[in-house]
């Protein structure tokens, strides 16, 4: 018996019938996109590397006696369950290569390191110093007598902080804009340093927070000791304070590897003022990830001056949230990438209330062909932030061929009665200025050095304390002297040749304007020649 297997041929005829008359009107949906909302939570999978790191951090710390810190750890742990390691496909890390950390073995620092005599150095000894070594506070409240009444500076875990713990617990709140590094710090911070200024109190002497990295490994060892310093600053209504953060290596660690993952939260009450200086001078083989989250109430003022020149991978995430109208914000940052370094600033200013005033100036110098700088300046002027006056300017100096800078100023403006501006300029040194100096007898190398130095001076001069300025200037000079072999650009004007400015700086530039559209791809950006006839 033969069996015939027939596969029935099914003819599928298109069943859609196009009606010849116009379709029914669709129901009128009013879609509103609210950009003020927090970013969508990642429906992610668990990244094994992150999970392992989270576990290591959890194991390294004993459960905290304080509920606020324990809550923070729990929340961070939960978010880490679904946060993958940032890859180049994530917009926030598109230009930043985190393989330095990803490909190393991470060892959290579990014990307060033994630090010898902590030299205050040449700074003004009247300043109050707080030393944080590898995330652990090493000294108790310094200079307590010189501080005004009610001001508290010290560890949250110490007994003397009892009085303010309740006030603080509302501030160690859930931060919706954090990323994986924020959560890592939340999970792994052994202690929280607190600076508390009660209402109406003006603290005359600035507080100098010195973050020292003690645990370190030799470069090339692929092991990174991780420390998670965490500081909370709360300034009640009408208070004023100056804060200086300095990130350094301990003696002898200037070329070693470590990873500092720090978080600073600042809450500024109504009419209060905070002047924040941030100097980063870590080892050239280290990783430095820092979060600064600032909340400004109405009529408050926040000023930040940053000078970063260290770290192989240095990233600063700055988030400033406006909680009331009439605020003032001034951000000035200076990044120097003089070796195989990446200097990254990702800033976000969110305005939800009217009449804010903000100015942001970012200057970076890339003086090495493997150096890189990244800038992502996000400003969101939301619907109710009318009469905002926001300005942003970024200027980069590319001094070597193949040096790279990626700038992405982006303004997202919804309110319609605002004054916002943004500008970006990337160039080599100005020909006109160089020629002017040469025409006065100053030779080319000296002229270049002087102009490079003066480029950063505009920001460095804004540091409010002269010892900081001098320290940064000295650091920058040293770094530039080391590169004093001079730029490898083409020869200058000869008798029958015209010199067309500094030659062949084939720079890879990725510049995007407002709203996120990509302009071209990568193209060679010739150095700017300005006519000064």
């Amino acid at each position, binding site marked *: 018996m033969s069996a015939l297997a027939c596969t029935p041929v099914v003819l599928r005829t298109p069943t859609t019938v196009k009606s010849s008359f116009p379709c029914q009107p669709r129901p009128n949906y009013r879609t509103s996109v609210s950009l003020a909302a927090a970013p969508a939570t990642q429906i992610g999978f668990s990244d094994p590397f992150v999970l392992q790191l989270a576990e290591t951090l959890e194991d390294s710390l004993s459960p905290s006696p304080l509920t606020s810190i324990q809550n923070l750890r729990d929340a961070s742990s939960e978010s880490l369950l679904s946060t993958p390691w940032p890859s180049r496909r994530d917009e926030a890390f598109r230009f930043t290569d985190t393989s330095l950390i990803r490909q190393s073995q991470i060892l959290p620092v579990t014990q307060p390191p033994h630090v010898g005599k902590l030299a205050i150095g040449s700074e003004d000894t009247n300043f109050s110093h707080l030393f944080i070594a590898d995330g652990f506070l090493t000294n108790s409240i310094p200079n307590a007598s010189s501080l005004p009444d009610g001001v508290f500076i010290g560890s949250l875990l110490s007994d003397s902080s009892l009085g303010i713990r309740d006030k603080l617990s509302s501030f160690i709140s859930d931060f919706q804009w954090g990323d994986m590094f924020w959560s890592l710090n939340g999970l792994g911070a052994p202690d929280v340093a607190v600076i508390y200024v009660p209402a109406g109190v003006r603290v005359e002497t600035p507080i100098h927070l010195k973050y020292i990295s003690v645990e370190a490994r030799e470069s090339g060892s692929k092991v990174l000791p991780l420390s998670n310093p965490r500081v909370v600053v709360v300034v009640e209504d009408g208070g004023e304070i100056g804060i200086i953060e300095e990130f350094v290596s301990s003696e002898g660690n200037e070329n070693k590897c470590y990873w500092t993952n720090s978080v600073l939260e600042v809450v500024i009450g109504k009419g209060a003022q905070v002047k924040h200086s941030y100097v980063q001078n870590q080892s050239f083989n280290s990783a430095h990830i820092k979060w600064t989250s600032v909340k400004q109430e109405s009529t408050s003022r926040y000023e930040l001056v940053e000078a970063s020149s260290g770290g192989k991978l240095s990233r600063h995430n700055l988030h400033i949230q406006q909680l009331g109208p009439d605020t003032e914000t001034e951000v000035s940052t200076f990044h120097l990438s003089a070796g195989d370094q990446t200097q990254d600033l990702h800033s976000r200013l969110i305005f939800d209330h009217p009449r804010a005033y903000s100015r942001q100036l970012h200057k970076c110098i890339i003086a090495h062909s493997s150096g890189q700088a990244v800038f992502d300046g996000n400003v969101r002027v939301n619907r109710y932030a009318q009469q905002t006056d926001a300005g942003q300017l970024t200027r980069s100096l590319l001094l070597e061929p193949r040096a790279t800078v990626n700038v992405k100023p982006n303004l997202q403006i919804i309110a319609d009665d605002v004054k916002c501006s943004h500008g970006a300029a990337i160039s080599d040194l*100005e020909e006109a200025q160089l020629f*002017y*100096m040469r025409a006065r007898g100053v030779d080319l190398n000296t002229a270049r050095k002087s102009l490079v130095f*003066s480029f950063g*001076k505009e920001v460095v001069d804004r540091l409010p304390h002269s010892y900081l300025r001098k320290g940064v200037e000295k650091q920058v000079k040293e770094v530039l002297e080391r590169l004093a072999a001079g730029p490898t650009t083409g020869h200058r004007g000869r008798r029958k040749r*015209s010199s067309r400015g500094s030659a062949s700086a084939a720079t890879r530039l990725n510049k995007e304007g407002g709203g996120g559209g990509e302009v071209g791809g990568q193209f060679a950006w010739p150095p700017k020649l300005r006519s000064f006839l």
Partner: protein
Amino acid sequence: MAQRLHFSSSSRPSPSLPTPNSVAASAKSNRLTFNFNFLPHPTTPTRLCFGTTNRRRLTVRPLAAAALPTVASDESVGVPGKKPLLEVRDLKAVIAETGQEILKGVNLVVNEGEVHAIMGKNGSGKSTFSKVLVGHPHYEVTGGSVVFKGKNLLDMEPEDRSLAGLFMSFQSPVEIPGVSNSDFLNMAYNARRRKLGLPELGPIEFYAYLFPKLELVNMKSDFLNRNVNEGFSGGERKRNEILQLAVLEADLSVLDEIDSGLDVDALQDVAKAVNGLLTPKKSVLMVTHYRRLLEFIQPSFVHIMEDGRIIRTGDMNTVSLLEKEGYKAMSTS
């Protein structure tokens, strides 16, 4: 027969100048006398020769009086006893980017102690000429030679030209934010001292040197802390240029439209400063449009430039004619 030695009867500079002896000497004689202590020159283009004795290098250029037609020979006079400071022979230059020819054969000799002025229509090449002298990268020299103090100027880098004693004050000085005036002057002055083999000056000694120069240009000392030309008005920038000239003590100053944008008082200050810096060894080459500056800084020679060449050399009478009848009276064609 053309008049000669026109310059000897010209009104020489204001009393504030030290009277150069050589001018007084030549004023007495009506004829060329020869000393044998001028430097030999490599180039000897054709010249008109007068007189009987050897005059291989000295010529008399037929200088036109006001009414006579100009002879378009563009040599300038050598004065006995004067060393040529700058000699430009048949200089041709183009704009480097476009190749457009601007200078089409400029001939000029500036001797020590002389004040020269160049006037001309817009676009005639006056500023280009001064920029080419100083070594501006926008221009490329395509022919001719420039000898400054016996050395080939066109082979030198701009900083070497400045160290050799050439100073140019820019028409629109650029600002250099971040570099203070005192630092800048200190750097430039120390570069000069290094070249002369003298020890460099520190900031305090330099300030002691600088202070009288400030008085010379009538500027206050608080401007030293400001950045170079940053926020300066036009007049302040020009005065800053003259201050740099005073500090660097150049031998030949090329002043490119130093009078543009200056009010009467500022102009007098600048002129006074320039006159105060003149010595029998130093020369000035001014580019200007207006008679006013020339009344303060009296020139020995006035050159009219047109279409990339110097078409006429005269003195203040030429300037008067120019003011009355305009550039078409100067034109030779």
